[in-house]
């Protein structure tokens, strides 16, 4: 009786991309007129915002492989993200031919000139912003690291400058060994247990010590939080962790649910999964997420059962709905650039409707904890081991999925799950939906449709025919010309720093030291970060509105389309992080950051910032401001802010004593980290 709405056939990636040069040629006319106003770094008459090689002149804008990078700056012939030996082999094979792919300069022949161009880009990522032969400045490095890590440090800025190649930095990050959260959380718990039960004299009565570690034992969320803060600030695999953090705000589970508040190990295990597949394939990640007990508990897919008409029981729709709405497709059909499609009335087109949700709800039936029977108390379930199918509770009737794909009856829970996730994964919304969401987590709240389209195209095909390659997607997000050029390309480029990232950046920039025995649930031998907030670092969410895996609902801390009333909303822009930006969270964040700058001391009870380098510059205000500008505002500080700081530091009220010098350093940091220029990452 239902006539499913027809959806357009999935556009093959190259069809869409073919259109790009056409758009550009139209754009050239417009751009030539407005080039100066809009910024045209290479002076080829094509505005930077539109230029497919913005750092080197290419008036023809040729883009033979349709990847959005002009031939002139795209010596990455096999589209693996870097110009390397493979590309040398390919240009050698094409030598003397007409190209056109390897004809970089457009003279209709692949010759020594083109080889020379390739050499200039060797070891680099291709793309509009790629600059042949020019070193990455410290400011550029700091800006990149602000986007790609939990905050730049002097060491990391040097490392990236030495590499002189963003793509190579990403390669190294991907190759690094991975932080393990479950191991870390369990070992901290075990350390506390050992300390509590073996110390002489006993620090606590034995019956107040925790139970010994066991496979199915779980405990209050804080052991995961302790480990997360340590690793976010100190961990070496920064890019992977930053991606896991981004994914944790899309594939949301939260300890605010009564089912997960007492589940440090379940949460840690879930976070391990996000880290493990941070550069993996989204299809695999979706399946692992669907079958993780933390998600199973959070969105009640665990023990979801087939219909029982006698008792008016239907399958639970919770996971099915949020999978489609929040994890994969969104409620409206999207164009390949993430903009909304519209029907004849000018209305957005629903991606699915309630009947679709009910069909998917029937798919996701018959899954249970791996270690206990269906009816046993869920508290005994192992929250760190993938769920398993239980045939008796699975709905085996046929199902109608998205885009009129029909699933035959009689299949197992695993077969149905595989087919349903394949069905979702193949939907054309997925690339642009996820691209838009991820871009907002890393670089800007307001990407141009073209930026979304370029990233979505990489999601659709990583250059080797693979769909859903998250490593390639992240590389595309960070290396995109819009990401690298920032406000030079798009004046509104950037995002409000979320409270957690303000904290991590401060801690990383100034080498914050965790405190031995710094919380009630760790022994004196274990150091953790803490804060003087009313509930400690592990509980700051109550004050600043955010903590890891702790959003108020599956809708994350902020909606991707949130726009605060006023100029932002009126301009049609979004600024998701402002949803958390209320009088009390603003004050709490500022007070928390300033406390660490102002009061924490070496050897004291609170997380201590090491300001020794800054202190050595206190008598050279200009140098002090330069250093802070690099670490905090990526060298982009305005002349006005700089002048305010220099005037402040020139105030004779500071004594020349150590205390006065420290006062200067602290004041400069506090003024910067609470300035609008810092608060908006650009």
């Amino acid at each position, binding site marked *: *009786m*239902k*006539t499913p709405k027809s959806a357009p056939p999935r556009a093959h990636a190259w069809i869409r991309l073919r259109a790009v040069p056409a758009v550009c040629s139209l754009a050239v006319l417009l751009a030539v007129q407005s080039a100066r106003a809009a910024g045209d770094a290479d002076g080829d008459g094509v505005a930077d915002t539109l230029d497919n090689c913005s750092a080197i002149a290419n008036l023809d804008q040729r883009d033979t492989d349709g990847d959005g990078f002009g031939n002139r700056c795209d010596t990455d012939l096999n589209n693996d993200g870097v110009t390397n030996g493979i590309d040398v082999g390919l240009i050698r094979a094409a030598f003397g031919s007409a190209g056109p792919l390897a004809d970089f300069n457009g003279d209709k022949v692949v010759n020594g000139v083109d080889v020379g161009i390739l050499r200039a880009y060797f070891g680099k990522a291709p793309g509009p912003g790629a600059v042949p032969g020019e070193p990455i400045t410290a400011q550029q490095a700091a800006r990149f690291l602000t986007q790609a890590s939990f905050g730049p440090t002097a060491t990391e800025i040097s490392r990236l400058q030495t590499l002189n190649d963003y793509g190579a930095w990403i390669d190294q990050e991907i190759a690094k060994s991975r932080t393990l959260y479950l191991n870390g959380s369990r070992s901290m718990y075990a350390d506390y247990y050992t300390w509590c039960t073996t110390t002489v004299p006993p620090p606590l009565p034995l019956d107040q010590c925790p139970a010994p570690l066991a496979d199915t034992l779980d405990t209050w969320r804080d052991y995961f939080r302790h480990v997360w803060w340590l690793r976010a600030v100190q961990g070496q695999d920064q890019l992977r962790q930053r991606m896991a953090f981004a994914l944790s705000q899309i594939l949301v589970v939260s300890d605010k649910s009564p*089912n997960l508040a007492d589940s440090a190990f379940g949460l840690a295990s879930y976070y391990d999964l996000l880290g493990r597949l941070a550069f993996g394939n989204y299809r695999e990640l979706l399946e692992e997420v669907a079958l993780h007990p933390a998600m199973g508990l959070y969105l009640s897919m665990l*023990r*979801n*059962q087939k219909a029982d008409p006698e*008792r*008016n*029981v*239907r399958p*639970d*729709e*919770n996971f099915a*709905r949020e999978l489609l*709405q929040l994890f994969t497709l969104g*409620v409206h059909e999207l164009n390949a650039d993430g903009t909304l499609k519209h029907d004849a*009335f*000018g*209305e957005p087109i629903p991606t699915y409707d*309630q009947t679709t*949700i*009910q069909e998917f709800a029937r798919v996701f039936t018959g899954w249970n904890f791996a270690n206990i029977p269906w009816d046993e108390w869920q508290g005994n379930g192992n929250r760190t081991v993938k769920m398993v199918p239980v045939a008796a509770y699975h709905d085996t009737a046929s199902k109608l999925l998205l885009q009129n794909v029909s699933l035959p009856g009689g299949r197992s829970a695993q077969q149905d799950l595989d087919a349903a996730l394949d069905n979702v994964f193949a939907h054309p919304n997925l690339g642009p939906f996820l691209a838009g969401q991820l871009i907002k987590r890393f670089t800007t*709240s307001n990407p141009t449709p073209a930026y979304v389209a370029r990233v979505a195209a990489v999601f659709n095909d990583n250059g080797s025919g693979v769909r859903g390659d998250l490593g390639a997607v992240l590389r595309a997000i960070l290396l995109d010309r819009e990401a690298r050029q920032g406000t030079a390309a798009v004046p*509104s480029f*950037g995002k*409000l720093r979320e409270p957690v990232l303000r904290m991590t950046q401060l801690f990383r920039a100034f080498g914050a030291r965790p405190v031995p025995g710094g919380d009630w649930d760790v022994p004196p031998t274990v150091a953790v970060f803490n804060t003087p907030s009313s509930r400690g670092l592990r509980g700051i969410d109550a004050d600043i509105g955010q903590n890891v895996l702790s959003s108020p609902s599956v*809708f994350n801390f902020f909606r991707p389309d*949130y*726009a*605060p*009333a*006023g100029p*932002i*909303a*009126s301009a049609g822009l979004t*600024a998701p992080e*402002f949803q958390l*930006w*209320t*009088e*009390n*969270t*603003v*004050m709490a964040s500022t*007070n928390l950051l300033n*406390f660490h*700058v102002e009061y924490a001391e070496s050897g004291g009870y609170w997380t201590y910032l090491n300001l020794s380098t800054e202190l050595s510059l206190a008598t050279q205000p200009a140098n002090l401001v330069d250093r802070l500008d690099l670490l905090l505002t990526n060298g982009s500080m305005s002349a006005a802010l700089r002048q*305010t700081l220099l005037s402040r530091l020139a*105030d004779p*009220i500071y004594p020349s004593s150590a205390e006065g010098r420290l*006062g200067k350093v602290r*004041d400069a940091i*506090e*003024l910067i980290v*609470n300035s*609008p*220029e810092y608060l*908006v990452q*650009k």
Partner: protein
Amino acid sequence: MDGSNEVSRRDFLHRLAAGSALGFAAQLPLMSRALAAENYSGLSDYKSLVCVYLNGGMDSHNAFVPYASARYAEYAALRQGLAIPRASLLPGTGNVIGFHPGLAPVRTLFNEGKLALVANLGNLFEPMAPQHLFDYYETGNSAVEIPHELYSHSHQTELIQLNFIRRPGSIAAGWGGQMGDRLIAANVNQSFPLAYTLAGSNYWQTGLNTRPFSVQPGQDIPRFEEFSSDSWPPWEPGRSASWGEILARSYAHPLEAQAASAMSGTRQRSDLMRAALAGAPQITTPYNAESWFESQLRSVARLISIRQQVGMRRQLFFVELGGWDTHSQHLQWHGELLVELANGLFNFQRTLQELAVESSVTTFTFTEFNRTLTINGDGTDHGWAGDQIVMGGAVDGGKVHGTPIAYSTANTGEHWGDTLFGPADTGAGRFVPQYSMDQYGATLAKWMGIKGTDFNAIFPNLANFTQPDLGFMKPA
């Protein structure tokens, strides 16, 4: 573009397509939504609204159960394993409604005539039947305008607060905020905030000019500790002045401009609020400080207690109790939340009595949707029409206002494999509401003093319903 124009334009197109009798002229009042068309500066009494947002989709089926035995039997047959036993229900005056056993304090207020229920409410743009929704599913179009993205938390949450569908670039002005834009004229001190949220950002209190001031429940208004005018360390006043200089600059980047104005606004308003609250009277009515919900309401009471000192005649408050998305463990979680809700409302109403504003403050609940009447085992899923609570001395209490949701065990058809339980069922016990959030809001707005053409400006769908006042407030 203003969101209401979106709605009316689309509405118009749909009507055109459907050949509706309501023509363009009926839409005209909606097309121009400006600030106050009426004058509110003459309001001299004190009134405020306290909005209790039940975040997650509160199940009213198990909260307010039909008590008459024939209707109870239908309920129990449909709710099956999650039905509340009749013997444990607490019948209210008139024996129409049996309150959930966790709602004893709410029943007390109901029986005292200080609390009423408003039945069968939900997001709705115009009267409609389930068939309209089925048409929409099947053809992508319908003769009536249907609230979009039904059953989605985020979209329905926005809709109860805005009464129109937000699109990129539309100004998200909620019906509370738009009341605030107008009623601010009544306040003696218009530089002091009119709207307060104890639960973060929300669209309900956001108007064209109105913005909620956010207060941390259970705490005094803090200050920017290191940017104060304290004399220690000696350079703190200088640091503080420099920060003021930084915030006062104009910023070309729209996000920086927003951050700057939010920071400086927070600084100014917090200083005002803190000073005012320092003189707040002691409140002696007990409350449970362990409950986040009760802490919010206690903070509201404190803010109300200083209304005269700060020159307030009209105010809006927003509090929240979350956790109602009971897809599983429904009986336990829902039951616990009802206890917290009931105790909070009861203690709050008693506090208002202590402050002698019992009839000047009206508290009301809303939630994005009710839950399915049928179950998924140990839980329920997203539904639509439900019942809400209104509380206060001005409420026509002790009654259920409106026609209750009509459900029936008699099979009235089937859609997409779901049995339809009654003529309003869209499947599995997700009922089309009889009354819209526009009507609910307009009834409250009328009590607050909104008049004339401002109703249709604030409530863009009100003209589509024959009853602009649901009658749950006592006649003035």
